[in-house]
């Protein structure tokens, strides 16, 4: 079945440093969603990417969808302690009827 690889699995940064997580698939994706889950919390929808080469920004967060629609990335500029959590990419699958979830990238930020 369709699988997604997200790297790195863990990342530890100093507050103010940048952070990037990558999501890679062996198959072409029709769309991909990104979620953030704070420790002890539940996943929260951040954004959806649909178009090849699409770039979307939310304040310090920049989301990209690769030209071949096989990979995606989330970049956080100047991390803050409020960015701590696990970031999941979740591509659509099954004729777009469900999402595929990987292990996510856990981000820790040292103040």
């Amino acid at each position: 079945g369709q699988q997604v690889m997200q790297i790195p699995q863990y990342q530890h940064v100093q507050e103010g440093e940048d952070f990037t997580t990558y999501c890679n698939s062996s198959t072409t994706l029709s769309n991909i969603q990104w979620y953030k889950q704070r420790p002890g919390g539940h996943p929260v929808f951040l954004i959806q990417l649909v178009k090849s080469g699409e770039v979307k920004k939310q304040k310090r967060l920049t989301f990209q969808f690769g030209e071949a629609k096989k990979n995606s990335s989330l970049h956080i500029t100047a991390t803050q302690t409020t960015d701590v959590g696990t970031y999941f990419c979740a591509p659509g699958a099954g004729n777009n009827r469900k999402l595929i979830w990987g292990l996510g990238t856990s981000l820790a930020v040292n103040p």
Partner: protein
Amino acid sequence: EAEVAQSPRYKITEKSQAVAFWCDPISGHATLYWYRQILGQGPELLVQFQDESVVDDSQLPKDRFSAERLKGVDSTLKIQPAELGDSAMYLCASSLTGLLNGYTFGSGTRLTVV
């Protein structure tokens, strides 16, 4: 902002007992999902409803798990009998019909089986 309601928030049960979780999705969201999440892993889909119909329960352990959404609104997930390995967070999510919509998750039920 509209929320997905789940109860209970925490549940401790003995193995072999029955346990049930309840979810009330956002009004107007026809699609409802039950997920199980083990610490350090991503959510695992157990069952997906479209209105009152099950559209995917391929990962639901049907010998002990059951789910219903009788009137196409709120939903119940049941485990009987509970096993130690069922200890996890059970998350409910809802979305507008069609995948091109983000999911809204509830706060989840943390189940501990002792």
